[in-house]
């Protein structure tokens, strides 16, 4: 028998510390690569540029399809930036360590998603009105466009993170991710684009926005658990 | 002179917001680039001077070797004489 025995720790909390550190870490990583933070925005702008070129420069036609185009392009921009959400952590082994931390994985995953939204969804929403001008979006719908995108992209980040967690262990997960996630995005897309169209028609937008809010609330409650479970599965592979 | 008064000049025949915002943004960007270039140059020179002072202090103090000294040490077992 040895004299000194190492004391065993009880799991003693510190959840807030861990969550805050994870938020800070991801923010630092994203902001440090200055250029890359802008990438989803640039992608958004580029895709919006492609449509008039490919379809027609006619402002009247563009005005009709603008809400849909803007929403689809923002959705794709958010989707594409998702792939890297967990991948670099997986590749360098820190995802393994995240899973072995004595903290609820759902909370840590949520912190990562929050950073993702803050640095992609929110800027996309803020930038959309500018691109709206270029697509000749009728006046009066700009605020609704930004608001619906801000609400909607939060749900998109949450739902998309489930897909990202499921595919993180797979090579070429990128396109598979789209396949898994896009069908789930459709409700958000319908009510998001619907809100902007309603604003253009002059109809009330509160119903649409309320549904977007409800979708967000639901994803906030369910997605973290799904993300945690999916990460466990991916590490197991 | 295309304008008869200063007020008219400012009004730009009703096109003031357009003309002045276009000129304003241009002027702002040009001045900002010049300002940035000057600040950049000054900071770099100051940084280099500070470093030179530090190196100087270190070399006269003689305590540590400078960080960028040659580190390669030896090639051992050179048996042949390559002429």
């Amino acid at each position: 028998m040895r004299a000194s025995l190492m004391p065993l720790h009880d799991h003693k909390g510190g959840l807030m510390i861990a969550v805050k550190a994870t938020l800070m870490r991801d923010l630092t990583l994203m902001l440090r690569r200055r250029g890359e933070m802008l990438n989803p925005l640039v992608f958004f702008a580029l895709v919006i540029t492609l449509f008039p070129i490919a379809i027609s420069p006619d402002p009247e036609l563009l005005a009709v399809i603008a809400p849909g185009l803007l929403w689809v392009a923002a959705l794709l921009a958010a989707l594409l930036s998702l792939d890297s959400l967990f991948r670099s952590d997986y590749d360098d082994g820190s995802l393994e360590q995240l899973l072995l931390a004595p903290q609820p994985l759902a909370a840590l995953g949520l912190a990562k998603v929050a950073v993702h939204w803050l640095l992609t969804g929110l800027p996309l929403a803020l930038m959309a009105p500018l691109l709206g001008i270029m697509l000749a979006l009728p006046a009066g719908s700009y605020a609704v466009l930004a608001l619906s995108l801000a609400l909607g992209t939060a749900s998109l980040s949450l739902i998309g993170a489930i897909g990202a967690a499921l595919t993180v262990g797979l090579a070429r997960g990128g396109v598979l991710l789209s396949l898994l996630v896009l069908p789930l995005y459709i409700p958000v897309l319908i009510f998001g684009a619907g809100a902007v169209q309603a604003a253009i028609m002059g109809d009330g937008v509160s119903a649409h926005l309320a549904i977007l809010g409800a979708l967000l609330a639901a994803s906030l409650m369910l997605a973290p658990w799904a993300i945690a479970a999916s990460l466990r599965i991916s590490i197991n592979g | 002179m295309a304008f008869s008064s200063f007020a008219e000049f400012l009004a730009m025949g009703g096109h003031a917001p357009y003309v002045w915002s276009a000129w304003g943004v241009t002027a702002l960007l040009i001045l900002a680039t010049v300002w940035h270039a000057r600040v950049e140059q000054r900071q770099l020179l100051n940084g280099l001077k500070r470093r030179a002072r530090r190196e100087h202090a270190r070399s006269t103090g003689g305590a540590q070797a400078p960080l960028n000294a040659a580190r390669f040490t030896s090639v051992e077992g050179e048996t042949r004489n390559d002429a």
Partner: protein
Amino acid sequence: MSLCLQARQLACERDDRWLFEGLDLDIRSGEIVRIEGPNGSGKTTLLKILSGQHSDYQGELFWNGVAMSDTREHFLANLLYLGHAPGIKSGLSPLENLAWYQALSGESGNEAQRLEALESVGLAGFEDVPSGQLSAGQQRRVALARLRLTPRALWVLDEPFTAIDRDGVAALERQLVAHAQAGGCVLVTTHHELTASSLLRRIALG
């Protein structure tokens, strides 16, 4: 309080081949247990099962006498696992990497501790370089600094000596022995020969 990790009738099959079968293990405080075996004999797989990352196995695991599934939180709070990949973010400096790991275990710690840990693994002067610009061995050393920084009783180390130079290997070996002597426990795989010690126990696979 002494720790004890037990496995009963552990078995794992990969591609219709049994890597191990009917494996009984008792790992206790004060031991260094080295899992041995040629390449492909299942050492990594065993470590992943024991640290709860792999669930595709048969048999039972117990932590201090309690079935693992019931005491996972407590087990994790006392486990430090270092796998083949070092888990170091290349965009963050060594200091920032360590800060995150400390926070993950629920402590905010302080910078002096982290600086000291980095110095102890020979990275003084590299604290603020992005880790991606360190050499292979230096990156692993950042990960090894966690051994000093976050005190955990059970260390599970998969090939910790990879890419570490001679002096580093000797220092790490001393650290393992010291940990076991202090009542901790080390589970390690390596192809390096470890210096014989009364604390060292071997488990051979394959």
